[in-house]
């Protein structure tokens, strides 16, 4: 990897809409709320924004083909250079990478990055749209849905490492509790391991309380070149490293117990950020947690825990807000909600707020300087990583 990057780039503003099951607002309007909030605390105005990147997942959720174009005006892209960024569930973090590229390349001085999803338009349930992301002749005839794909991967992860269900249920307990402190939450709750394990088994070993909901929301960040960032912001949050990677879409051709592609994406980002010991140098992390086991799976892929050992660290409290490596302090997808593309950018927003000490009741206790956000998606095979730092 040749690192001949022209400009340092920082995030100077972040904002998001409420996360909810069924918003009255259209996707454009949700995008507007997020953009308005992000601009408000960025020191920049819409006139200063030179280009816009929009992340939004399958068109079939909102039910609008060419959804990127449809959302453009709500995303502040009126008569500006605009590009859609899209790798399914990984899109939210892919979008900041895309925005970074726009500015780091020297092409633009500023970039507004927006992510939106309105899943409630899809009826009777977005699962019908998920069905059609799988292979049309080999998998779809079985009536495949996301739950049982995750169930197969979760079972493999548990079997290989002999992880008990109780340990995985702890992720739901932690994240739903964290979510209670998030002002935008849809599903924050105080639940016990017992309640998680007594919730409906949707596809063994996936229980209902181990699954994130379908959601409507938007998130946005404002990115600026170093000279601008220093001028408009008292505390720019620098984009230190980015990484992304895709595995084969034939998920029958790989072992599901470990996300190699997440590791590759993480290594790319660590190398760029000059991080050699991520467990010491990353102080707060927002790994993608659409299902409870995924947070653990991803912490291992990110090299923040040994393979199969993330559950033990979780039990010891390492990943709590007052632990050594707080993980999903926002509440994540299980504790806030899962508006697919917006969920990834929501994690970037959380790292931004945590590093600036602006996370309020969610603020972690270890005075973090460097944090990492990760998203995951496509056909269970994309990993997107960003490392942010106030140093």
């Amino acid at each position: 990897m040749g690192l001949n990057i022209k400009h340092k780039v920082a995030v100077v503003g972040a904002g998001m809409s409420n996360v909810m099951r069924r918003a009255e607002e259209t996707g454009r309007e949700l995008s507007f709320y997020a953009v308005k909030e992000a601009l408000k605390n960025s020191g920049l105005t819409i006139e200063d924004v030179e280009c816009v990147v929009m992340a939004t997942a399958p068109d079939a959720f909102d039910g609008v083909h060419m959804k990127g174009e449809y959302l453009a005006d709500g995303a502040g892209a009126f008569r500006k250079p605009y590009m859609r960024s899209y790798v399914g569930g990984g899109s939210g973090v892919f979008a900041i990478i895309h925005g970074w590229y726009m500015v780091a390349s020297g092409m633009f001085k500023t970039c507004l990055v927006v992510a939106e999803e309105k899943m409630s338009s899809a009826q009777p349930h977005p699962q019908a749209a998920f069905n059609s992301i799988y292979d049309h002749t080999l998998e779809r005839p079985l009536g495949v849905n996301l739950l049982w794909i995750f169930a197969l991967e979760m079972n493999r992860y548990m079997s290989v490492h002999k992880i008990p269900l109780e340990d995985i249920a702890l992720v739901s307990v932690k994240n739903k509790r964290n979510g209670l402190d998030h002002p935008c939450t849809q599903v924050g709750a105080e639940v016990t391991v017992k309640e998680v394990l007594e919730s409906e088994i949707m596809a063994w070993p996936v229980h209902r309380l181990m699954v994130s909901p379908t959601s409507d929301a938007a998130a946005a960040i404002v990115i600026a070149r170093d000279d601008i960032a220093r001028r408009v912001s008292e505390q720019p949050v620098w984009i230190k490293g980015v990484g992304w990677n895709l595995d084969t879409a034939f998920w029958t051709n790989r072992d599901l117990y470990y996300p190699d592609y997440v590791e590759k994406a993480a290594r790319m980002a660590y190398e760029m950020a000059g991080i050699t010991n991520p467990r010491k140098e990353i102080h707060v992390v927002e790994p993608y947690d659409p299902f409870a086991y995924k947070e653990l799976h991803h912490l291992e892929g990110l090299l923040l825990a040994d393979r199969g050992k993330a559950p033990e660290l979780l039990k010891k409290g390492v990943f709590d807000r007052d632990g050594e490596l707080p993980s999903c302090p926002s509440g994540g997808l299980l504790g806030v909600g899962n508006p697919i593309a917006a969920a990834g950018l929501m994690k970037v927003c959380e790292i931004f707020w945590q590093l600036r000490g602006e996370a309020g009741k969610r603020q972690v206790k270890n005075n973090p300087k460097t944090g990492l956000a990760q998203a995951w998606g496509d056909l269970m095979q994309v990993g997107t990583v960003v490392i942010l730092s106030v140093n």
Partner: protein
Amino acid sequence: MSIWRKVHVNKKAHAWEGDIPIYFSYTVGPAGEKFFTALKEKGVFVAVRCRQCGKVYLPPRIYCEVCMEDVEEFVEVQPEGRVVTWTEVTRDSRGSLLEKPELIGFINIYNTDGGIIHKIVAKDFSKESLTGAEVKAVLKPPAERSGELGDILYFELKV
């Protein structure tokens, strides 16, 4: 040769027929609610004015796409305007011939910077004079309106 194999007859290819089994329920949003409620109950259109740049949006929305600010100055306007451009269509979207050709126009609504695309019914129109012609909406009777685009039956030439 750069094209080394091509299936010329689709029927010979083994295929699995599939569809995407989904339908949609679209909310119209807070501004859309105002527009369709006024259409249903009062037979008028609702537009919204941006205080900052003065642009009047129809259909209304809750933000100005230029200023990225909230817009809240909703105004009622009569469903009348001028034809900006038009076409006469002869086939439907599946390619079948229509029983009779239909006029479709983009109508700028008076006192707004926006407009609406809808059917125009005009007997004896001339191709030269339809662009720029004054038209007004013909609505369903109030009791039959349900707050949707179909409450507008068509636009007709103003006499």
